[in-house]
């Protein structure tokens, strides 16, 4: 199933859903006690976000399951903001649990109380922030568990993209390569603050370059 969701809020019941393409402001909520699983097609994404620069996207209580064949859980290409709360992205093989990859504009990202646990080996991350072009990402990551990925949380702006990310009260453990990774591009900028975080069982706990 592919759906373009235009009007907030959208509340979904316990069921398995196909991939979603979001093009406008929307709130998708799965209330407590409801298991709303979103499963992509092989090598596809569970949720793609291609919205306008002032659009706000809110995801609550969703379970994104790549089933070992999905590409990414969430791919944010464009929009004004993304707020993800109580979400799980797991079993994606080729990409990342949550991939924020704008090419222009300023994007505010808040990820709270969520879990990313993907299949290592595809060079993906639990949460990856990649600002390119003249894009700016302002991200807050709080109470997140990133485990079993190649990179737990990664921020790697390229070209002239800018990224500021605050990571707090979280765990980045048992990832194949790095728990928390940051690398700025040739002319890009990256600021990372890490507070009250545990990184264990990775090849590198924290790796920063740039």
């Amino acid at each position, binding site marked *: 199933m592919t759906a373009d969701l235009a009007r907030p809020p959208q509340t979904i019941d316990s069921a398995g859903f196909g991939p979603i393409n979001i093009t406008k402001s929307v709130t998708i909520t799965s209330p407590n006690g409801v298991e709303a699983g979103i499963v992509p097609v092989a090598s596809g994404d569970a949720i793609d976000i291609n919205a306008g620069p002032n659009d706000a996207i809110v995801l609550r209580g969703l379970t994104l399951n790549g089933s070992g064949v999905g590409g990414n859980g969430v791919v944010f290409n464009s929009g004004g903001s993304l707020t993800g709360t109580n979400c799980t992205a797991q079993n994606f093989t080729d990409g990342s649990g949550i991939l924020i990859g704008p090419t222009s504009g300023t994007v505010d990202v808040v990820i709270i109380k969520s879990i990313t646990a993907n299949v290592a080996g595809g060079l993906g991350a639990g949460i990856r922030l990649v600002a390119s072009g003249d894009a700016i990402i302002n991200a807050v990551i709080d109470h997140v568990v990133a485990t079993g990925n190649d990179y737990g949380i990664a921020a790697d702006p390229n070209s002239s993209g800018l990224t500021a990310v605050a990571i707090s009260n979280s765990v980045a453990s048992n990832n194949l390569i790095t728990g928390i990774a940051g690398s700025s591009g040739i002319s890009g900028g990256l600021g*990372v603050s890490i507070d009250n*975080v545990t*990184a*264990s069982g990775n*090849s*590198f706990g*924290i790796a920063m*370059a*740039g």
Partner: protein
Amino acid sequence: MLLGRSIITGNGTGIDNATSPNSFFTYKDNRITGNIKTDIDCPMNATVALQ
């Protein structure tokens, strides 16, 4: 890069700091210990005095 109040343990390398110029700062109480290869492979900057 600012690191505070965190636990980095049981990794191959705890902290891999390749920033140039060195822009890896720490504050308050971090526990970076018990990593297999090395805890810190490049010195970090002195503790930041927070206001």
